């Protein structure tokens, strides 16, 4: 139990310092892109291998594209009420009950 509480306290302390964490992440992003720009690419297998920061841009745009895609599929096609299947099954049972009551 002691370990659980201590871990919770550490996590709480980190949550309190959310702003610091955010800036650290932004700093890290800048650093990684800078290294990518300064260091010549090791590979030349694909046309984009020589473009510094390509992966960063690709990941960012890819993330946006995936979010757009799932929203479109969800609202356009596949989202239903959470009880979609159970309700259908329930309706059948009710109908059968009525039928047998009539019979």
């Amino acid at each position: 139990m002691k370990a659980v509480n201590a871990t919770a306290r550490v996590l709480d302390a980190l949550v309190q310092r959310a702003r610091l964490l955010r800036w650290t992440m932004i700093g890290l992003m800048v650093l990684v892109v800078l290294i990518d720009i300064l260091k010549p690419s090791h590979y030349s297998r694909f046309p984009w291998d020589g473009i510094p920061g390509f992966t960063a841009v690709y990941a960012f745009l890819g993330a946006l594209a995936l979010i757009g895609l799932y929203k479109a599929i969800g609202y356009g096609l596949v989202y239903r009420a959470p009880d979609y299947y159970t309700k259908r099954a329930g309706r059948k049972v009710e109908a059968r009950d009525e039928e047998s009551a009539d019979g």
Partner: protein
Amino acid sequence: MAEWLHPALLLMLGALPLGVLQGRSRQVWQLALPLLVLLLVVALPDGTRVTLEFAGVELTPLRADGLSLIFAYIFALILFIGNIFALQVDDGAQHVAATLYAASGLGAVLAGDLITLYVFWEIMMISSVWLIWRRRRQAAYDAGFRYLIIHALGGMLLLAGIIAYWLHTGSLAFEPLAGGGPAFWLILVAFLINAAAPPLHAWLPDAYPEATVTGTVFLSAFTTKTAVYVLARGFPGTELLVWLGVLMTLYGVTYAFLVNDIRRLLAYHIVSQVGYMVAGVGLGSALAISGTAAHAFTHILYKALLLMGAGAVLQMTGRSRLTELGGLYRSMPITFLLYMVGGLSISAFPLFSGFVSKTMIIEAAAVEGRAVVFLLMTLAGVGTFMSTTLKLPWYTFMGRDAGLRPPEAPLNMRVAMGIAALLCFVIGILPGWLYAILPYPVDYNAYTASHLIKEMELLLFTGLAFFLLLGVLGGKDKLSLDLDWFYRVPGKQAVLALRNWIVTADGAARGAFMRVFRQAEDATTHLRLSGWPLKSWPTGSMALWTAIVLAMLLVFGLGR
């Protein structure tokens, strides 16, 4: 010793006492048995083959080589870890089912011929469904039956394929299958059903989240990974698998965004991760097949870890929907941190296991200059990181506080997660020992400066997009239809309509028969009442009938 004691057989026999043992003795046996089997498979020398004659057919129930052994090691290991996680479960049926399931998975990867493979394949299906049914809810019974029907269909296709293969080649040895022909396609489709490849995948995200908390951990390990093994054994270098694998990676991540249940989200990521492996099999080079085996190994560990984390949340809170969870990091901090190790592993974060295995498959695509495959697999990595490692933990453990204050998961669950997390980390920092047990020796270094920079760019900028759009990414209290809709709604309606048609047609036929029967009955009654047969007949008519009978006797007599 290992040559005459088949590890799968030992495990099957060892499963039986689990049904009757109680309390501490059951727990001790639950841990000792997988360790014993692990020792046995580790002791199996590479190249072991056991053959026997059965009903005039040569069978190879045991074939240990580079490709089968790595799967055997991880199967035994995950049974041990899963059993630690399940120690507190007081349900003998579940323990027996899990052990038989692991044994049949082990038997399938060690099978050297198609008949042995088929037998273990079917036991795998029959034993695993109990891990779903023992949840003892209507939804679990229904999902279990759907699971059973799909896998029974797969089993039949496999058997038909094996018979076709035997008729065509006269052999039952399980070796790479030559392209084309009915045997090739039947066996391939049977394997792809178990690999959960779209459009034959819907059984997985339908059934796994309905299984028991501990059952899902076992389910995530054996069925799909056995399928990856048999694909790697039978269909290396099949071009179709490259594109099917890529489709799986993206299909899985897209659907994972759409669902609300945390275990269903992770189930869709099984589809996605198995996609990398299927694509690796399709690429077929030594690097790709080794990458596939390595990724299956690491995947079993981190996926078990993730599902144990999600299962612990379900066990302690009784909830598994993103919309009902939040803020659990204070009450379940250890589970949260261990889950994150699994999350970082599946996302291929440097220093964690996925980084040293997933990048092998992507590297294999790059080496062959497959630009589209490379880009799409990388995109799937973006989605994986976003939903497994950011979205799920954010809306479960951080984010809006749902006011839940459950106790931390029991010690045995934390220990199981801890061992899996430790292995994920150790493989991440010391990949050498994983690379040493791969089917083909590979000269691959994940930790090059270019790999590290690209992977960090990928993850950090995915994280940026996630946090910028955090407001719209929460779970929706919706059900997302998948292709199982086709057999759950129109398929079911078609079967019911067919049943109704048969009932109506049967009723109509019986009615028509009875009508004719009654008419005949009425006619005879009428005839009897009329007294016509009993009236006195004139002599002339009697003479005519006698003549007719005599004439017939003459005709038939002449014919003889």
